């Protein structure tokens, strides 16, 4: 109950979209990847968690405390970065940092300077003169410099070049090793395969999986075959099919694949996600 983040029965209803009710808890000192296709509700969930949105139902607790009534204190311990977040386009980074630094009781100037060097950020520049990726790096630098124990990151690697992505991922792993808990949503599943300990998989506003990355991928197998061979599989055992080089690929539960004795290969995070989404699309159609 007193983990860094516990979400219970979180729900939010919009015209045409309904989130939840969701329930999950983050394990301390672990990196949890938050996956799901566009519109699945990842950003809505994160916004509800950080208090941008007021959920229609449910509770969000940080270390056992609700945000309401403890906002200022809890936000000292939580860092939130969103890839699309705009901020003070015509103010220099130096001015922004000088203004924000006093808000944090555990500001680490050394860590901030290291981030600036690592990300090659020029404090004299304004956000409007920076690319989206560089703006994101600046936001990450702020989040990594105030001693946050929990980092909530909404697509923190989108828009970054491969080298910068690798640097961010490396930083996250270092923070995890230091005891920091991280929840990050992304479409770049390879980033999660490199870093995530656990996976939250959200589809159409519902949480479909909350487990370790290994459990998530080990539970599935990918079968590649001709269209006829895939069509011959028992339909109830096939969880989504996609076109592939050989013809079609089909996702099966590991136990089912073993029972059928099919020559399957391990499924990656992206394989599982795209096939399950395909299955959901077919059901909806």
């Amino acid at each position, binding site marked *: 109950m007193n983990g860094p983040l516990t979400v219970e029965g979180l729900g939010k209803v919009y015209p045409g979209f309904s989130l939840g009710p969701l329930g999950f808890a983050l394990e301390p000192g672990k990196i949890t990847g938050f996956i799901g296709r566009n519109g699945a509700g990842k950003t809505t969930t994160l916004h509800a968690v950080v208090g941008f949105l007021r959920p229609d139902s449910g509770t969000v607790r940080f270390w056992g405390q609700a945000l309401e009534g403890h906002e200022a204190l809890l*936000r000292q311990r939580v860092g939130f970065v969103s890839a699309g977040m705009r901020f003070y386009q015509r103010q220099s980074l130096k001015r922004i940092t000088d203004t924000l630094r*006093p808000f944090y009781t555990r500001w680490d100037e050394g860590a901030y300077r290291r981030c600036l060097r690592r990300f090659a950020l020029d404090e004299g520049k304004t956000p409007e003169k920076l690319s989206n990726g560089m703006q994101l790096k600046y936001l990450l630098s702020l989040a990594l410099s105030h001693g946050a124990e929990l980092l909530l990151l909404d697509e923190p690697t989108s828009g970054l070049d491969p080298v910068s992505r690798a640097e961010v991922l490396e930083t996250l792993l270092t923070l995890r090793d230091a005891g920091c808990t991280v929840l990050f949503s992304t479409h770049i599943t390879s980033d999660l395969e490199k870093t995530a300990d656990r996976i939250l998989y959200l589809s159409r506003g519902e949480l479909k999986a909350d487990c370790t990355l290994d459990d998530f991928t080990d539970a599935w197998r990918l079968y590649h075959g001709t269209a006829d061979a895939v069509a011959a599989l028992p339909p109830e055992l096939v969880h989504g099919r996609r076109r592939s080089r050989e013809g079609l690929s089909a996702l099966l539960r590991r136990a089912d694949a073993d029972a059928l004795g099919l020559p399957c290969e391990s499924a990656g995070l992206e394989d599982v996600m795209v096939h399950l989404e395909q299955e959901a699309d077919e059901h909806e159609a």
Partner: protein
Amino acid sequence: MKRKLLRKELRLSRHPAALLMPWLSALCLVPNYPYPVMYFYLTLGVFFICMSGRENNDVGFTLTLPVTRRDLVAARFGFVMLLEGFQLLLACGFVALRALLFADRGSNAAGMDANLALIGEGFLFYAAFHLVFFPSYYRDVTKVGLSFVKSSVVLALLLVAEIVACYAVPFWRDTLDRPDPELFPAKLLFLGLCVLCYALATVAALRVSQRRFARLDLR
């Protein structure tokens, strides 16, 4: 925390035009001009601040800081009140300067003379602005324009009423709309009442705004 937020308002949320608006108190030196218009210009400056805040995601970004929603609203009120106070101080100076330079120019044909009662009216105009603009703005911070239109309509009606009152309402015509230092005690009493109205309206507007902002979903 409120002090840090106020500092953030001054350093990051300010808009250059908004900082110039208080200086339009110099309009007091223009003969036959509806002087309360200068108070409207300040509200235009507040509109610029909120509009540029929307473009810069000021509210969303500030909410990632260790602050409460209540303090965020209070800091914006504090910032606007600082601007208003600065404008009124400048207005006092320009009213005094006008009395020195143009004492022989006679009464203002377009409403209230530049005198102590005009300063009191400033508090009334600001009170009305607070009551209309902020509760509307904090219901949905993305609809800055709509909130400003509402407050502008109210201020325009107040301005017309003020000009009419200077001709038709005996207390306004015979007591307030007189050059200083004539009937100074009465004007001082009027100023005190206006300050009281301003304080009550601001507290009410602040509470309603905080309540509405507490329920607001940021998009």
